[in-house]
């Protein structure tokens, strides 16, 4: 049990890194390009770590490290079968420290990016929170005690998690916070070298938690079929997000929040209502 937890903790971010490489490769193929090698995200991180570190203030560096630390703690709790609610709150702290880091610099692009990152959190966190509650209502909040059957009971919540994934992967139509061409890279704009690598790693751990939550929906009979089914489910959602990214244009921040708070919450409410009606009958 402990061994498998440690394996998840180490392999999770590695798999997320490979999924980012896959994402760039698939996007390139959709645009009729050859695309970078599969391990490109790892090369990027390695290069960023070897660059000179230019920080504007100690505060900026501190916030970047805190963001990474909170995301690592959240994912470690997940790997060791902790409480999903606690994991969700700690993961949000990591996201908040990214925003604080962006606010700690005087750059207007950074501030606009931070404002928009807060709006994006306003859009995706209620969905993620309600999804966690819905999973908890099926039995237990503890990751280690979650029983098979989530996919057949709450399939609409899996669909509601897709736009959350789109926002977290910074993809159109919801790439409002980082908005290249418009805000350069939003909250990341004042970071360079090793500290950008820290934020990027934090982002990987955050995604690892969300992918982990998605994999809770499906269970196989044996350990091999279990792992394969989980990977396939995560890949299907990733591929859907990439497809959406390549066929849509960026929406305004207002329509992003409106979409998430109506369609997202609507899907979850509908799912719970259907479950309730079935139970009563």
């Amino acid at each position, binding site marked *: 049990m402990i061994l498998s937890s440690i394996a998840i903790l180490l392999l999770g971010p590695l798999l997320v890194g490979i999924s980012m490489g896959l994402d760039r490769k698939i996007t390139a193929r959709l645009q009729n390009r050859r695309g970078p*090698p599969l391990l490109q995200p790892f090369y990027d991180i390695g290069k960023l770590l070897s660059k000179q570190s230019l920080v504007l203030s100690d505060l900026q560096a501190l916030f970047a490290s805190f963001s990474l630390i909170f995301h690592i703690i959240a994912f470690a709790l997940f790997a060791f079968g902790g409480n999903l609610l606690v994991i969700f709150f700690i993961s949000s702290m990591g996201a908040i420290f990214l925003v604080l880091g962006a606010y700690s610099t005087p750059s207007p692009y950074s501030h606009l990016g931070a404002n928009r990152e807060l709006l994006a959190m306003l859009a995706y966190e209620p969905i993620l929170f309600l999804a966690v509650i819905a999973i908890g209502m099926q039995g237990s909040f503890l990751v280690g005690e979650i029983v098979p059957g989530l996919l057949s009971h709450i399939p609409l919540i899996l669909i509601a998690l897709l736009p959350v994934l789109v926002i977290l992967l910074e993809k159109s139509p919801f790439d409002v916070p980082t908005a290249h061409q418009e805000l350069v890279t939003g909250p990341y704009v004042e970071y360079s070298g090793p500290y950008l690598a820290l934020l990027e790693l934090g982002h990987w751990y955050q995604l690892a938690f969300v992918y982990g939550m998605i994999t809770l929906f499906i269970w196989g009979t044996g350990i091999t079929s279990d792992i394969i089914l989980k990977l396939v489910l995560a890949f299907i959602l990733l591929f859907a997000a990439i497809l959406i990214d390549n066929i849509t244009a960026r929406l305004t921040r207002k329509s992003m929040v409106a979409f998430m708070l109506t369609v997202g919450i609507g899907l979850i409410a509908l799912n719970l209502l259907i479950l309730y009606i079935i139970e009563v009958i």
Partner: protein
Amino acid sequence: MGLLDKIGTKSPWILHFDTGSCNGCDLEIWALLTPKYDVERFGGINRANPKQADILLITGPVTMRCEDRLRNLYEQVPEPKLVVACGNCASTGAPFHNCYNVCQGVDKVIPVDVYVPGCAACPEALIDGFVRALSLWEDKARRRESE
């Protein structure tokens, strides 16, 4: 650090700056980023942000107004960094020789690593210059460590 330096050559992020070019070379640079020449094969992406860039692709003869801005951008790029002067104007200021309002080339303002001639520099030549600049990367990184 040897391994990290080697990895650095696999992920060159680009900053493209136009110092008063006629846009001929700029169009060719944009051709690099589009499907036909696709410089992302080498891991290069246009970051449009000096703080996250590794390679500066500079076009134009550097007008007097651009001089300070170019120097400012160069100073914001963290080490190790590479500069490629793209086209005849950026290399020598060619058609603007003895003009009163230009600096006659990028190397009058900041150190240049690779010169790519041509008016406009063709995409193949630009890729060649790009790859040649990358071969200087490890050298630069090692020199930085010894300092």
